[in-house]
């Protein structure tokens, strides 16, 4: 448990988090490993776990018939896999595939949500980090949608 707590606090997402919160989070956490090609989760499955990538790359994908899966974005060491587990209806909105060996922290969603309800300081620390991560992601997605590399019309 002590080793896990250290791993939790070392993850970039929790940078600056007081060690008093480390025990709370690691109490809901486990170490995970995914092989290349394995799916961490699929669209519309219940979002039960908060994933933080420690090593490797995860592709977020959408599937559609008669075409290969569309990769929306790739996330790497230090990134978190979305916040669907945090807000109802707790459903993943896309597929997540390990593109190579991936080591991740998995934090049980219900466990963590309950702890945040009980300790609003913990909740606020996490919220601040979430909003920052999601804000960056939204900005990046907007730039992607702009299709800035398309040929410019004369």
């Amino acid at each position: 448990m002590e080793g896990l707590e250290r791993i939790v606090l070392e993850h970039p997402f929790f940078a600056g988090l007081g060690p008093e919160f480390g025990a709370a989070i690691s109490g809901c956490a486990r170490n995970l490993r995914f092989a290349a090609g394995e799916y961490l989760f699929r669209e519309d499955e219940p979002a039960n776990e908060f994933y933080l990538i420690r090593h490797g790359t995860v592709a977020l994908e959408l599937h559609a018939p008669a075409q290969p899966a569309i990769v929306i974005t790739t996330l790497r060491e230090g990134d978190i896999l979305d916040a669907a587990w945090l807000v109802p209806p707790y459903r993943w909105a896309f597929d997540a595939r390990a593109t190579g060996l991936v080591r991740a922290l998995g934090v049980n969603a219900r466990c963590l949500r309950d702890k945040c309800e009980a300790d609003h300081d913990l909740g606020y620390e996490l919220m601040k980090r979430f909003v920052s991560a999601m804000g960056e992601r939204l900005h990046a997605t907007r730039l992607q949608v702009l299709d800035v590399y398309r040929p410019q019309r004369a």
Partner: protein
Amino acid sequence: MLGVKLAIEPDGVQRIIDALTRQGYRVIGPTVRDGAIVYDSIARLDELPVGWTDQQDGGRYRLEQRGDGALFGYAVGPHSWKRFLHPPIQRLWQARREGDEFTVVEDEAAAEPLAFIGVRACELRAIAIQDRVFLGGQYLDTPYKVRREHAFIVAVNCGQAGGTCFCVSMDAGPKVETGFDLALTELVENGHQLFVLEVGSAAGADLVSEFSTRPATEAEIAAAEQVTARTSGQMRRSLDTSGLKELLQANPNHPRWDEVAERCLTCGNCTNVCPTCFCTSIEDTTDLAGATAERVRRWDSCFTLDFSYIHGGSVRNSPRSRYRQWMTHKLAHWIDQFGSSGCVGCGRCITWCPVGIDITQEAAAIRAAPQPPERDVNGRS
């Protein structure tokens, strides 16, 4: 006269063929060609596979001499009667251009009536299944209807199970029950050949009334019953159909699909030889001058990439998805669509698969380790 059982000698079978020919039927029956027993036009008894039998297993088919003169001492080969009722290639219509307009002329359904000699119980069931597909819905396949209505069927009760047969599991044999005009059971005892002939329809009764026959004795009828009873006991394979539809429909991501995909070549042999597979493609062509056009329907297979192609790509791209489609359709979706299983237990798909994939084994493997339900989409709330 329905249900009456008569006894005839082998030359009685020849007389049946002759009577059908006289009445204008094209008589089709089993015959040996290229090392297999196929269905083609026949006129004489010696064109039947007299004294032949088959050895069948997964991916294996060999003919062997029996050492007796049995006319029907084998199981089924690569052909099924669907190639006559639902031909591999069929023109639907022609169109002729006149200026910027065109007129379409539909093809007439084939006029020559067909008589089938040697239809097994599983094949009668397969014909009934295709009847449901082509005639039981809102839209009719008219050429099939015409051919079917004029077909005369002489069924045969199987004297031995083929190596890959499992008709007993599918409740489709080996005894013929219904759907025939005449049915034969071959009895070979001490070199003496006899047939018990059952009349199954008014057309069958009419045909038989043309020549003299005698009623079968109690002993002969009992011997005929023994033939199919013995064949039932010879099945080397079985398929547990209880809850099979739900099992397959609930397991689209079972690891077995990945496993069979490593063996399946997606060659489509199984769909070709299966007596119930009915999928077709439509081709529109025109002559070089662009003056006449035609529409032709030809057999297709869900194993081709083209079969599920929509703009941009194939929906079922992987071999895994195509094998899953074929097997789930045959054993599960068919029940939702047509009220019965699409499989009759003839074993052809097992025999003619180049790598010997066995549908009964695949179903058993999935049944042995069903996966937990992925998600209940309807329970989502």
